[in-house]
C-alpha cells in the first residue's frame, strides 16, 4: 500500500468515524441522561437522508434542503419527546425497547408511503464538487473533507456545550443526579426535551450530509443503528468522549478492513466489541 492510497483510506476512515459520532453522540446522551434505550434512533438518520433527497430535488440545492430540514427534525424530536418518550423515563427498559421497535415500523412504513421503496442518489453541491489530486491517478474528493470539517466543528460545539455552558452543566448534573437538579428548581423536563431534540437533529443531519456519498436506501436506518450500538458499547454509555473514540476506532477499522480483508470486513466491528466486552464490559470510558 503506497502512501497516497493509505492517506485516502485514512481520510475515509476518519470521515466515516466522524459521521458515526454525530449519530452515536445523540444516542449516548439520551441513554446517559434519560436512561432511555431508543431503537428508533437510526430512523432519524434515515429521515434526514430522505428529507435531504426530496427537498434538494425540489430546491435544486442540498444546502437549502439542509437549512429547511434541520428545523423540521428539531420539531420532530421535540414532538416525539413530549408525546411518547416522556412516558418511558420511569419504565422498564423492556417497554422502551418495545415502544421504539414499534416506532421503527411506523417510520419505515411512513417512509414507504411518502417516499416509496426506491434507492435514490443526491448530487454533491456544485461548490464542493471537486477533487484534490494526490498522484497521477489518485485524488480525494473535497466534499468528504468538507463533511469531516463540519463534523469536527459540531463535535467541538458539542464539547463546548456540555463542558462550558450552563445548559451543559445542567445536562451533566442531570446525568449524575436527577433529584439534585430538580431540587435546584431547574426544569428537567425542558432539558430532556432539548437533549432529545438535539440527538434527533444530529442524527438526521448526519443522514443529510452523507446522502451524496452513499445512496438513500430504505434500510439505511437500521444499519447505522446497529453500528451506533456497537459504538456506544465500546465507548461506554453516556460518555460523549467515549463515543468519539469508539466512532473513530470503528470508522478506521471498517474502512481498512474493507481494503485489507474484504471477506471478513463486516465482522470486524463485532470482534472489536467482543474484545471490549471481555476486557472492559463497562466500555472504554464507561463508569465501572
Amino acid at each position, binding site marked *: 500500500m503506497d502512501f497516497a492510497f493509505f492517506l485516502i483510506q485514512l481520510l475515509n476512515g476518519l470521515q466515516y468515524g466522524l459521521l458515526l459520532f454525530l449519530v452515536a453522540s445523540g444516542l449516548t446522551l439520551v441513554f446517559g441522561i434519560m436512561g432511555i*434505550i431508543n431503537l428508533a434512533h437510526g430512523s432519524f438518520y434515515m429521515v434526514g437522508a430522505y428529507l435531504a433527497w426530496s427537498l434538494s430535488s425540489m430546491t435544486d440545492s442540498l444546502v437549502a434542503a439542509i437549512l429547511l430540514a434541520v428545523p423540521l427534525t428539531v420539531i420532530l424530536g421535540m414532538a416525539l419527546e413530549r408525546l411518547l418518550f416522556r412516558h418511558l423515563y420511569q419504565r422498564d427498559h423492556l417497554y422502551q*425497547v418495545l415502544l421504539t421497535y*414499534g416506532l421503527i*415500523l411506523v417510520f419505515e412504513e411512513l417512509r414507504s408511503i411518502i417516499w416509496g421503496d426506491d434507492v435514490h442518489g443526491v448530487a454533491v453541491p456544485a461548490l464542493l464538487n471537486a477533487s484534490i489530486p494526490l498522484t497521477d491517478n489518485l485524488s480525494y474528493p473535497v466534499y468528504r473533507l468538507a463533511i469531516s470539517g463540519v463534523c469536527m466543528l459540531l463535535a467541538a460545539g458539542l464539547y463546548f456545550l456540555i463542558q462550558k455552558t450552563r445548559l451543559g452543566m445542567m445536562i451533566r448534573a442531570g446525568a449524575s443526579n436527577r433529584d439534585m437538579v430538580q431540587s435546584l428548581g431547574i426544569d428537567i423536563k425542558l432539558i430532556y426535551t432539548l437533549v432529545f431534540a438535539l440527538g434527533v437533529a444530529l442524527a438526521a443531519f448526519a443522514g443529510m450530509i452523507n446522502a451524496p456519498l452513499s445512496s438513500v436506501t430504505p434500510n439505511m436506518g437500521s444499519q447505522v443503528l446497529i453500528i451506533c450500538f456497537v459504538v456506544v458499547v465500546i465507548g461506554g454509555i453516556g460518555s460523549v468522549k467515549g463515543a468519539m473514540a469508539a466512532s473513530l476506532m470503528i470508522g478506521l477499522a471498517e474502512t481498512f478492513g474493507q481494503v485489507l480483508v474484504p471477506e471478513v470486513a*463486516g465482522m470486524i466491528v463485532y470482534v472489536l466489541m467482543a474484545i471490549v466486552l471481555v476486557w472492559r*464490559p463497562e466500555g472504554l470510558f464507561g463508569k465501572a
Partner: protein
Amino acid sequence: MNSRLTKFLPWLVVGLLALFPLMESTFYLQLLTKVLIMAIFAMSLDLLVGYTGLVSFGHAAYFGLAGYALALLAPKYETVSLWWSFPASIAICALFALITGMLVLRTRGIYFIMVTLAFAQMLFFVFHDTKLGGGSDGIYIYAKPTMKLGEMELVNLEKLEQFYWLVLFLMAATYMLLHRVLGSSFGRALLGIKVNEHRMRALGFPVFRYQLASFTLSGALAGIAGYLAAVQYGFVNPEILSWHQSGAVLMMVILGGMGTLHGAVIGAFAFVLLQEVLSNQAWFGIAAKHWQLAMGMLIMLVALYLPQGLAGLMQRFGRKPVAEAADD
C-alpha cells in the same frame, strides 16, 4: 378459576388442537402450524425475559441459526434424516448461545439489550454477506426431512397434518419441559435472580452460571422453533434472523403477558393472527400493503397501556387484582 381446571386446561387445549386437521382447511392448518412454531419461539424467549430478567433483543439469531443449520446439513436434493439433523441443529444453537452468552452476560440492562442485538446482527451479516448461506437469497430446502424407524416411515413431513401434529407435540413438550424446569430449584433460582440478583449473589448463588444455563437452554429451544420454521417454509434467508424477527417475538411475549408460559403461547396466537388480519388485502385493500404501520402503532399502544399483556388484561377484568388479594 379453580385449580383443577387450571391444571387440565392445557391438556384440553392440546387435545382440541390435535383435532384441528379434521377441519380440512389447508390455509388454516398452515397458519396454525406457524402459530405453534412461534409459540415455541415465544416460550423460549419468555424463559429469558419473563423468568430470568434478561431482555434479549437478538433472539432471532438462535431461531435463524437452526434453520440455516438444517439447510446446510441437508444434502441439496435429497432428504435428510430428522433423527440426527434435528438434534444437531439444536446442539449448534445451544453451542452458539453458550459462547455468545459468555460474552453478553458480562453486561446488564441497556448494554445487554444492545449487545444481544449486535451479536444477532453479526450473524445476520455472516449469512447475508458471505456465500456460506447463499447470501441474501438464502437456501432452498427442496425435500423435507424424513423420520424413519428402520424402513418404516413414522411421520411424513410432506403431509401437512402430520407435520402439524409433530409441531403440536413439540410445542406441548416444550411447554411441559419449561413448566418442570421453572418449578425446580434451578427455576426458582432464576426467578430469584430476576427479582434480586444482588441478594442471590450474597446468598452464595453463582449467578453467572445460572444465567448462562438459562441463556443456553433458551437458545436451544429457539432452535427447535427455527428448525421447524425452516421445514415449513422450505427455505431460509437472512430475514429469519433479522432484528424484525427479534422484535416480533419480544412483542409476542409481552402481548401475551410475560412470565407466564401460556401467555407466550397466547401472545404468539394473537400476534400471528393480527399479522394475518392486518395484511389481508380483501379486508383492507391498499392499506394491507402497509400493514406494518398499524402493527407498529399497536405495538406502541401495548408498550404504553398494556404492560402486563393480555394475561394482565384478563386478570384486570376477571379477578381481584393480585396486590389486593395478597393484602389480607
